[in-house]
């Protein structure tokens, strides 16, 4: 069953179209990655799904039922970990989690267990009585997560939860998310970190300018782009003519030589490693080291959304952190 089902969603801010006939389906139990450059409409889409924002057109169904601002029964089953750390600076870690949890769970004793569980889950056991100002960036992010998941929601939106977090905390967060999914939750995950998304998301959607531009599993996405494998050859010296010859190979998309390394991006298809080495041999270049790697999600992302810098123009995406 589809947990999230968004059809033909349109959201405008004046002349700016933030969401342009946006469609999204998330199935139960999956970790769905929502990627896109800054200002592409990710947070707007999430806020519309949560009924925090009105929208101009389209339908949003959660758990198979139409979502609306007064659907508290549905809201009770949803958790959100916002991009900005949204906690009360005057309350301690424990109090913060309980305060937010109390918006979902009225029963005090049950809440106590839930809060304890959430604290254990994010590993803030030693910091229960700390106020947010005293927490480091990684701990603060973990608190931000705990506040969103303590009521054990079935559907959780993670909006760039790992911004400014060290690798250890990030790993803890990611494996935590997987644990939540194992426990039965469905996750919608947005991030700028491609390797994270590649690591945990089953299905991924790339958004740009308010629309879905690509959707599929990691493998499917990689198959959609022009680049196949990337070949790196370490050589002591490379004559200009040899580089040109590599560039003239039919499968070569691009080739460059920098820092004693020859980088060749090849088109999709079978491996072109042999052909490249053959050309090099013909110029008398002996490779020191050779390796070939498949395209990364980063390549997919950049190829689909283009290389130009974003972050200008209006959008709902505020810079991460504070």
């Amino acid at each position, binding site marked *: 069953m589809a947990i999230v089902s968004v059809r033909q969603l349109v959201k405008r801010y004046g002349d700016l179209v933030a969401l342009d006939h946006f469609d999204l389906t998330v199935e139960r139990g999956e970790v769905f990655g929502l990627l896109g450059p800054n200002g592409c409409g990710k947070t707007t889409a999430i806020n519309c799904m949560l009924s925090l924002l009105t929208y101009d057109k389209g339908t949003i169904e959660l758990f198979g039922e139409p979502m609306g*601002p007064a659907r508290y029964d549905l809201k009770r089953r949803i958790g959100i970990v916002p991009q900005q750390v949204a906690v009360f600076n*005057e309350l301690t870690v424990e109090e913060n989690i309980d305060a937010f949890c109390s918006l979902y769970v009225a029963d005090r004793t049950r809440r106590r267990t839930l809060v304890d569980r959430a604290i254990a889950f994010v590993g803030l056991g030693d910091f229960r009585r700390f106020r947010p100002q005293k927490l480091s960036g990684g701990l603060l992010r973990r608190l931000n997560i705990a506040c969103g998941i303590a009521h054990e929601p079935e559907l959780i939106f993670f909006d760039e939860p790992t911004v400014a977090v060290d690798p250890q905390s990030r790993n803890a967060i990611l494996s935590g998310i997987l644990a939540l999914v194992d426990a039965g939750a469905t996750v919608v995950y947005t991030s700028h970190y491609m390797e994270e998304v590649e690591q945990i998301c089953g299905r991924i959607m790339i958004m740009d300018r308010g629309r879905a531009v690509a959707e599929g599993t990691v493998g499917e996405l990689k198959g959609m782009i022009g680049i196949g494998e990337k070949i790196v050859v370490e050589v002591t010296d490379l004559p200009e003519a040899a580089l040109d010859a590599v560039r003239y190979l039919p499968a070569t998309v691009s080739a460059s030589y920098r820092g004693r390394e020859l980088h060749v991006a090849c088109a999709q298809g079978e491996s072109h490693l042999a052909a490249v080495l053959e050309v090099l041999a013909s110029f008398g270049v002996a490779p020191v080291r050779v390796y070939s790697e498949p395209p990364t999600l980063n390549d997919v992302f950049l190829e689909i959304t283009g290389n130009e810098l974003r972050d200008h123009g209006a959008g709902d995406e505020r810079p991460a952190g504070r």
Partner: protein
Amino acid sequence: MLTQIYYNIRMTLRSTGVVIWCFAFPLIMATIFMTMFAGMQSNQSTHTIKLGVVEDTGWQDATGLRTLLEELAYPSDAEDEVPLLALTGYADRAAAEAGVRAGAVDTALVIDANGTEHLLVAPSDAGSTDQAIVQTILDRYLQGEELAGALAKHDPAARANAEARAALAENLSGEQAATAELSVLREPPSELSRFYYALLGYSCIMCSTIAQTLIDRTRIAATPEGSRRQVGALSPARQLAAALVASWLIVMTSMMLAVAYFYVVAGISFGGRVWLTPVACGACALVSCALGAFVGALPGTQAGVKDALITIATLALSLPAGLFGTPALEVANWLSQHMPLAQLLNPAVQATEAMLSLTFYDSLAPFASACGALLAIAALLGAGALIFMRRQRYVCA
């Protein structure tokens, strides 16, 4: 909802700003008022004026006047009575002038060679009340002499009679025509209590920052926490109610704490009707919440601007309540007499008014009407806040 109220209260009480400005500040100010007026109150009714006299032959010769002044300076009848005058002798006019100029005495009396009295005052404080009191005493003495002379001209025969002359002199300096102080108020008025009451008015406005902050923290897009809360499964109306109840409780506590401090430490009696103060404080706390909600709901206003608005409102509205000293009290009086509507709509003034009527007036009607005015102001602001909030619901970013 109870949990929300609890956490709202908890985080507000942990905010340093709130604790300083809404709880500590009124108490600090009350303490300052107390020390400030401690000296003043004691020397108000029992006030001694420092009069210098040039003790030359003129002084020695003016027997009547000298006796009068000496009696005022050294009253024989009541030992515990504080004398009206304290006499300081000077050898000559130059010494007296120096004394007056240096502020050692309020004024000095010189009787010249012709027997004419002169009162010397310093240019820096000419026209003080104390000088006028001395002047009135001397005037009265001189007028008595003048009157005796006039009478003698009018009826020379009667004036030749020594007994009649003595009777006239006695009557002129006597105290048969007296005044009785009416006590129209339930207790003696004091400028001091008005300052304290104005302080409650200040609290009422200043505390609106509590409601403003709490409401902002439950509203979408006003704060990150607010957006997050609105995702929760508790309806916005109930969250708003939780914020309002929490702010009302805090403001009420802050005001009652101030009242208790005034009552217990500063000795302000509230006219023996301290049991009615919670009614006024309750109404004030409502205004405070409504004002906070109103400022919080103002569209397109940033947090810093809201803070500034509340600070400005606090200063601007407390001034006509008479918080900033005697000049402010005069402005308050002028406004009450000439622009009653402006005063009626000013919650700080109505808060002060409520306490004042409670303390001083026999009838409780003025108190009730001040509380009524407070409730009306709260209703007005609350309605305004609601209109703004309805317009903004769900629109963010």
